[in-house]
């Protein structure tokens, strides 16, 4: 960009010859005259200055007892003279510049960033309904209006903004963080086993332990009870909390056809092109409705743009068809199932859980492949559940009875 600017304003390459050409450089710097590409020689120095400063530079050279010689000049007046002779070219350049200026007032590319769960397509549709699409006059876009229109349509969005730069609208989305479930620490609860396993370690934060390390527990069995004995001898109902680390066993099975179809390239890839101008598409091929079976279709879009400067409403579309043939692959089916089983096991583990051992067994019967994963894991199996009302009533009745007995004892004495 700097070079283009220098070319437009015109530059001169000067050679200063004399006993001390360095003095000229000091004088130029002192006067604030810009010079660059300075190359020393024998009792001479060459540099480039803006054409407008060349006269002053030559005068300064004379004052420093040096001789200035113009080696070359580029751009500036020379360019203007050339442009005068080529008026048609000049008109074309002006028209292109005007078209670029006009085009830069419209949005020709929309990019959505920051969305994770809400799909880009859904956001683009909502934007289009709120009059933000390709070809929209961007000075008329208001972030507040878009927010007011789009956010009620997509409640998952917590905050959004639209920034338009050089015909490209960047829609920044910040998704709403779901409200965390509030834990009622006063509610009576028990800690039960979320999975069947053998307890290795127990950390009781509140409540009384109902199981011991080394014992095997079944799913749903109470591990930490919310009923605690108090100093007075009565039973208190608390919000049981704790962590119970246990070894758990998993056996996951997956069944699928013994051989599955795998793609392999067949023949030469074919390409076809189309041009999108604004919202209109021009196909440079026929038979666009023909279904291409047994082909992978790869679409690449190239928008004419100078990144950061301007974007034109012209997009070249290249569609490549890669023919393929399918062959039965036995290995890929089994490997895919093993990977899927391992992913499934990881998803079933409690947060922080680890896989200690894992073995796969494979069998094939009746054209079906069966893969089984048997794994031993270590994880926290504690699951907090509300204490059953019957248990609460039972504890309360027991407390009342105990109180009555105590009262009777006091009366007897």
């Amino acid at each position, binding site marked *: 960009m700097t070079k283009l600017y220098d070319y437009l304003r015109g530059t001169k390459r000067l050679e200063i010859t004399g006993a001390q050409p360095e003095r000229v450089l000091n004088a130029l*710097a002192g006067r*604030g005259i810009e010079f660059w590409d300075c*190359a020393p020689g024998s009792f001479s120095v060459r540099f480039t200055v803006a054409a407008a400063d060349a006269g002053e530079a030559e005068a300064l050279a004379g004052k420093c007892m040096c001789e200035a010689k113009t080696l070359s000049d580029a751009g500036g007046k020379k360019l203007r003279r050339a442009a005068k002779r080529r008026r048609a070219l000049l008109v074309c350049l002006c028209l292109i510049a005007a078209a670029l200026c006009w085009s830069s007032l419209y949005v020709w590319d929309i990019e959505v960033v920051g969305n994770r769960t809400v799909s880009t397509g859904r956001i683009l549709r909502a934007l289009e309904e709120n009059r933000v699409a390709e070809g929209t006059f961007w000075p008329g876009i208001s972030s507040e209006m878009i927010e007011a229109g789009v956010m009620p349509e997509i409640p998952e969005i917590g905050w959004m903004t639209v920034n338009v730069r050089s015909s490209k609208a960047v829609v920044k989305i910040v998704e709403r963080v779901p409200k965390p479930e509030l834990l009622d620490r006063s509610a009576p609860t028990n800690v039960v086993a979320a999975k069947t396993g053998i307890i290795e370690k127990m950390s009781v934060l509140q409540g009384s332990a109902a199981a011991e390390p080394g014992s095997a527990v079944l799913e749903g069995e109470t591990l930490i009870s919310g009923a605690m004995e108090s100093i007075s001898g009565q039973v208190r109902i608390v919000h049981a909390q704790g962590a119970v680390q246990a070894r758990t066993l998993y056996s996951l099975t997956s069944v699928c056809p013994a051989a599955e179809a795998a793609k392999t390239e067949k023949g030469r890839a074919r390409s076809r092109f189309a041009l999108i101008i604004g919202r209109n598409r021009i196909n440079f091929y026929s038979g666009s409705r023909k279904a291409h079976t047994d082909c992978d279709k790869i679409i690449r879009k190239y928008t004419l743009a100078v990144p950061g400067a301007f974007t034109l409403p012209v997009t070249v579309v290249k569609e490549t068809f890669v023919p393929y043939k399918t062959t039965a692959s036995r290995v890929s089916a089994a490997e895919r199932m093993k990977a899927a089983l391992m992913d499934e096991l990881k998803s079933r583990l409690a947060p922080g859980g680890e896989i200690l051992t894992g073995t796969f067994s494979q069998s094939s019967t009746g054209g079906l492949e069966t893969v089984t994963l048997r794994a031993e894991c270590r994880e926290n199996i504690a699951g907090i559940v509300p204490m059953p009302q019957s248990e609460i009533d039972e504890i309360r009745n027991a407390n009342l009875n105990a109180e009555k007995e105590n009262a009777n004892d006091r009366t007897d004495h």
Partner: protein
Amino acid sequence: MGRISFEDMADMLDIPGQVLPGVPRITMTGRRRVLIENHGGIVRYSGELIELGGKTRVIIRGSGLTLLAMNASDMVISGDILSAEYA
């Protein structure tokens, strides 16, 4: 007792050197580029040596030394720099 220079006074008073007049500040980026602030003008200039004037003379030695940009106070030199010396 000899004359006390500005630099000696600055050292005694614990004043940073860059605020003193005529003290060059040299910033080298790798061995290909050097920025000199508060220079006192060029005394000698060749492809192998650039000598700068002022109270503190600075000599930049190297090969293919080129003056990229220069104004009354700052200059940028590029090339294969071997050393920066004070004379």
